[in-house]
């Protein structure tokens, strides 16, 4: 569809996401690790970050259920899978270990590229390598993209796609 509008919306959303990360303190790995440090001097501020983010995100999701489709596209591209399986658990576990070691998750790390700090570059390059390594796995099941029309009951145009979250 209109690629320019799409991209403009995505640019604005990305900018707001990055501003939010910077404002929230999530760009500071020491603070993130302070949140994970439940056995030490626990810093609860990430509860407020996640709480605020999930609340507004939930409102957006509820609103989306009342719409026939997104404003600039034909369908909502939502994850279709519902089963809690071994790759999900193993992947989340590995991610958590890396998150705990570094204090970085993908959003803040990518946003922090703008600081051009060497440790950030090292982390992001390694992260991209890790992603590429996963791409080499045979038959990575989440890469299959399908979009079959109606799901979700009330005539919403909700695609069962492979939107990787």
């Amino acid at each position: 569809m209109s690629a320019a509008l799409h991209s403009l919306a995505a640019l604005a959303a990305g900018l707001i996401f990055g501003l939010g990360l910077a404002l929230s303190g999530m760009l500071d790995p020491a603070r993130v690790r302070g949140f994970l440090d439940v056995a030490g001097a626990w810093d609860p501020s990430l509860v407020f970050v996640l709480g605020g983010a999930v609340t507004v995100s939930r409102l957006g999701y509820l609103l989306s259920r009342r719409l026939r489709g997104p404003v600039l596209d034909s369908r909502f591209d939502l994850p279709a899978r519902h089963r809690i399986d071994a790759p999900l658990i193993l992947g989340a576990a590995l991610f958590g270990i890396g998150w705990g070691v570094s204090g970085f998750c993908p959003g803040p790390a990518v946003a922090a590229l703008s600081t051009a700090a060497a440790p950030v570059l090292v982390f992001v390059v390694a992260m991209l390598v890790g992603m590429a390594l996963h791409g080499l796995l045979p038959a990575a099941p989440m890469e299959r993209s399908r979009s079959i029309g109606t799901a979700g009951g009330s005539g919403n145009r909700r695609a069962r796609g492979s939107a990787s979250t």
Partner: protein
Amino acid sequence: MNPYLPPLAGGLLIGLSAAMLLLLNGRIAGISGLVAGLGRPGSARWLADAAFVLGLILGPPAFALLAGHWPEMRIAAGLPALALAGLLVGFGTRLGSGCTSGHGVCGLARLSLRSIAAVLVFLATGMLTVAALRVLA
């Protein structure tokens, strides 16, 4: 000022971004998925995904412009540890179909059981890792 006000305000902005991307483009704001997708140019969504990532990178400079200072960033881990962590985060988020944004901000908002499970697992291993490093240190 209340120390939890900036985290809350930042969180609200992150949620607003996720809501915008869903309502306008029909997309889940999952950073690991968007970034990994950039490695497959030619897909219909490539340009929009690249625009989101560009916006994300411009976020901290925009903050610096508005606030008059860069956001604080204290990195304790050394480069080898960061490289190992990056590998784990990259591989793990692809295997597990998401990270703090996709599973956390978006998945929890949809009350997705997969996302709730993923968030509980990565919070648990993250906390265990920090605790283990504290013991070793």
